[in-house]
């Protein structure tokens, strides 16, 4: 009797682990405008970017179910944003200081709403992008010119939307995974999803999704920067990153 019939759950888990583990990026899709761009172009499509506040959510998968990890997610948020900035800078793109710091937003309710609405609209659109990733290459998706509400000085080329989610495993769950020979109970999974949208037209210029098994909330972000750099590999490099 084959393992797929005698132990279907084990077989599926192994298959999934095999499929997922070696893949650094599950897809990198570029808008035709970016696809046609050449590295070091005199007039690059995007050069100055702003990373919008990352949307991070973690849960801890334990013997007693999923535990919320809001505090851990909040702590990981700046780490992920900084790692992404490093990955983009390594491509000679300028990552501008975010105009959406908690301090700025605290004093500007309208800006806070505009940012929340844009992120919500992106999240809504994201469902379609995720299902039809290839259509990014056809230039199908756009957030509309509402993006200009957050680009009032017209000095930003693109906004970077990043979301990360992860399921950490408790010691007990790992032990159960060993007993049940189920790798999905042992190995933690983290998904990072990045979308880049034109900060003037709202067009979605790039989309990438990656999955990793190492803890992306760690202070030491070397591995994370590596993974992010890999998953942004196709993004055309800029000339020289500006000094801010």
């Amino acid at each position, binding site marked *: 009797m084959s393992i797929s019939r005698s132990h279907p759950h084990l077989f599926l888990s192994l298959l999934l682990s095999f499929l997922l583990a070696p893949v650094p990026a599950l897809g990198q899709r570029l808008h035709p405008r970016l696809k046609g761009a050449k590295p070091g172009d005199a007039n690059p499509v995007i050069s100055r970017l702003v990373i919008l506040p990352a949307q991070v959510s973690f849960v801890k998968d334990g013997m007693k179910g999923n535990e*919320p990890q809001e505090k851990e997610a909040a702590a990981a948020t700046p780490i992920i944003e900084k790692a992404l900035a490093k990955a983009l800078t390594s491509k000679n793109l300028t990552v501008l200081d975010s105009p959406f710091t908690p301090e700025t937003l605290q004093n500007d309710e309208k800006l806070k709403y505009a940012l929340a609405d844009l992120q919500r609209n992106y999240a809504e659109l994201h469902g379609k992008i995720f299902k039809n990733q290839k259509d990014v290459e056809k230039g*199908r998706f756009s957030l509309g010119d509402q993006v200009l509400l957050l680009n009032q000085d017209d000095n930003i080329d693109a906004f970077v939307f990043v979301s990360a989610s992860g399921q950490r495993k408790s010691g007990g769950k790992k032990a159960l995974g060993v007993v049940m020979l189920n790798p999905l109970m042992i190995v933690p999974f983290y998904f990072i999803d990045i979308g880049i949208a034109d900060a003037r037209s709202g067009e979605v210029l790039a989309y990438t999704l990656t999955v990793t098994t190492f803890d992306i909330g760690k202070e030491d972000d070397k591995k994370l920067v590596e993974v992010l750099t890999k998953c942004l590999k196709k993004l055309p490099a800029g000339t020289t990153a500006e000094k801010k």
Partner: protein
Amino acid sequence: MHKHFQHTSIRRHLRLSFISALLLCFGFTSLAAAQTRPEPFRFGEVDLEFLDQIKQLDKKFGDRGLVYREPELNAFVDRVGRSLLKPEETLENVVWQFRVMRNPAVNAFALANGSIYVFTGLLARVENEAQLVGVLAHEIIHVRNRHSYLSYRSYRKKVLTVNILSAAAGILGGGLEVGMAAQFMLALSVIGYSRELEKEADLDGAQLMTTSPYDPKEMIAALDCLRQKYEVDLDGEPFYGDHPKTNARIAYLNEWLSKSATKRETESAGLSKEDYQKNVAEVTRHNIQLAIDAGLYRTATTLGKRLVATQPELASNLTALADAYTALGPRTLDPLAEEKSGQGKKEARKRRSKLTLQEEERTLAATTAGQERQKINQAEAEKLYRRATELEPNYPLAWRGLGELFEKQKQSSQSIEAYRKYLELQPAAMDRLMIMRRIKTLESK
């Protein structure tokens, strides 16, 4: 052959035993959870950790721009919520806060730390202050009776049982069926438990209202009002929903009222629809924009009509309704019979899952019927914008709306004129750059 049969039979017997054990375990844990609720509630380490996480979540809502801030409305909701609390009452690890969530859904929820969130969609929907009190009373009971902690404890116990049984099944050969059965039982028992708590929140909430100046009958009126659907219901009420069905809620509340409600000596408070509408006018306008963004065009239009019915001479109300009509575009205000049919819903679901809102709009507007409806809705919108500019010539948003409407109708010069008027009235508008770019594009056409 016989041996194989025997082996299969033993395995089947083992699986059945595991499933029976599961049933018993869930029965006992549910019963235990229902019967052994600690009185008074004592915080354990897990509860305190849970509370810490909840506080972080609460903070995140505020930091992320999800909480609506309008001093007068916030004060109104706070006053209404606190009318149900005794001044001397203190509850360990609870700081009562009544907040408004920027979300067009008709909903409210309570966090274990005492933060109660009412959605803008719900505020705009209920008809009077007493109905809002009904919703808040339900949420207060969730906090007061520590339902979040109890649910979380119950969930943890059940998952632990599932995991232990799954491990045992893994070792002894219970197989995949046991694992699946365990997960299914877990889902059902967790939902069953929360339905019990929801019922308790309804009944205790109604009881709480009897101690306030508000009539508990308004809780039923709120449920009745909230079940009205302005959009085609593509999801329906899921059988695994954690709230009892609305009809059942109304029925048991009515039964409770007939047995328990005492006759009031004074007149019930908060029944005026007009006063309430005025209190929530600004948040309703805000919610109309949120509903438009979320593709809830019929909801936006219906709420706009309610606003205008209450204060028909207010430019801001007329503009909000006009915005909703513009967004309604190729649709009718009330869903057509064909949209409500099984086939119609299937097609709508398909459209929603495949198309973006803009693509959906274009698809509908490509039909003759869609074009006709669009013309009617746009004419209505123009009439309302014009009326708004007559009443208040310097109301900028009406001019912006007109600009957008004319742009949709491809009337470039009129659109440019309206946009310019908007910028003249509001030179420092947040969307200044967006409008200027639109003008530039229209000029180049």
